[in-house]
């Protein structure tokens, strides 16, 4: 039984000094290229009439579903959050879908990638919070209910970023490891089933990652203890500000 490589960072295709092209970066570009090419392809034949091409129809369904989810979670107009949260979902989901291709190494199975995504969320939270509430109001959130909570709030921010990174990495990496182990024991049929399971897991993780990111951003864009009326398109609803983390979907 050979050594199982659990991270794609170690698969290096080209290196020059500190600059290197490993499998994580290369397959990230592959995912990016796939997403961008599909977008450009659809954009070229984009139409606002009632008769639309199938691919545009599919993308509209995806974008609309993302808008609805973001709107439901944030309780406000999803337009400004959709590019960030939607890209998180599409990237992770795209990587999971492309993972069924033999020889493809999912970049999300690298802790570097998941940490990068979690770090992006980490910075996106104060970005959207300050943009929505203003600098002083947002910073003030860390001093509530009392300034004594400041260290705990900071630790909470860091820990949830870490948890976000580790959760996605663990799930994606475990799928790859299980597939590799089973391939060694039962080379036929079972790996195919595991690939299917991996695909489902990947889609679920993409959904969870995006929703959690949105929950964090949403919590940062609301003032504590306030009740914010929904401003997104659709029926108006009132959200009580419980701890957003407690609303996390189960089964991660």
């Amino acid at each position: 039984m050979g050594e199982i490589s659990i991270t794609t960072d170690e698969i290096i295709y080209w290196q020059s000094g500190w600059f290197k092209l490993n499998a994580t970066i290369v397959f990230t570009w592959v995912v990016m290229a796939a997403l961008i090419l599909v977008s450009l392809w659809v954009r070229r034949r984009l139409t606002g009439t009632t008769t639309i091409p199938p691919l545009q129809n599919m993308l509209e369904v995806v974008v609309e579903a993302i808008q609805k989810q973001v709107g439901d979670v944030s309780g406000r107009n999803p337009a400004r959050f959709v590019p960030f949260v939607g890209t998180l979902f599409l990237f992770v989901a795209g990587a999971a879908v492309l993972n069924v291709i033999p020889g493809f190494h999912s970049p999300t199975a690298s802790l570097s990638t998941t940490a990068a995504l979690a770090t992006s969320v980490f910075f996106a939270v104060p970005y959207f919070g300050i943009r929505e509430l203003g600098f002083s109001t947002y910073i003030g959130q860390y001093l509530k209910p009392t300034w004594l909570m400041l260290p705990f709030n900071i630790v909470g921010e860091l820990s949830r970023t870490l948890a976000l990174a580790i959760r996605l990495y663990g799930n994606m990496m475990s799928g790859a490891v299980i597939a590799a182990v089973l391939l060694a024991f039962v080379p036929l049929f079972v790996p195919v089933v595991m690939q299917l399971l991996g695909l489902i897991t990947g889609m679920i993780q993409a959904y969870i990652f995006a929703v959690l990111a949105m929950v964090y951003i949403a919590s940062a864009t609301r003032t504590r203890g306030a009740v914010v009326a929904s401003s997104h398109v659709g029926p108006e609803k009132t959200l009580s500000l419980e701890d957003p983390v407690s609303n996390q979907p189960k089964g991660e």
Partner: protein
Amino acid sequence: MNIDWFTFVAQILNFAVLVYVLSRFLYGPITRAMAQREETIAARLEKADLQQREAAIAEARFDKLSTSLEHQRSDLFEQAQAEADLARKKLVQEARAEIQARRDEWQQSLLREQSTLINLVRERAGQQVVAISRSALSRLADVELEEQTIMSFLRKLPQFSAEQNDRIKQDSVRNQRIEIRTGFGVADALQQELRAALKDHFGFEQVTFATSEEMICGIELHVGGSKIGWSIREYLESLADELEGMWVKE
């Protein structure tokens, strides 16, 4: 479970690029296309709604017009029927009037023919009666009918009542014309006899004589508006009345 920091930074950059590119080429265009489609569909729905309202208005107008036309048709039909009834009644009345006129004309014609026939019968009957009477009296009794008629008149003069005599005398005072009218020519001797009798009875000095063929046979004394006399014409009038009665009965 190591983090390759070069890869970490590169992935952050990659993700930022991907967010920018997808925002520019995917979310924006797709969202705009969906908004445009929603506007198109909303406009179509609004147009359809407008057309539906217009159709409803047109339908209501058409129903109203149809009802109006139906009423007009019904009114025209009733009017035409009334006019037809009126025309029929008028035609029936005209036909009845024409029939009545023709019947009246026919009856008038019939009455004329009847009157003509009766007159003819009366005339012929009178002539025949007189001729037979004259012939029979002449052959069987050797007397003249005309002479006996005048004699009979002379015999009846004294039988007049006083009232009749007074009235004739009063008439003669008002109107001096005193005339003896006969259906035949009176001989001079008889004329003298009549003048003498009238002078004795009434005191008439001037008496004229006239002949009337209509009387056929008989003698009459005309004094002013009064008349005394007998003629076969009166009998023939009775005969004519009898004949008319028979005619009507048949």
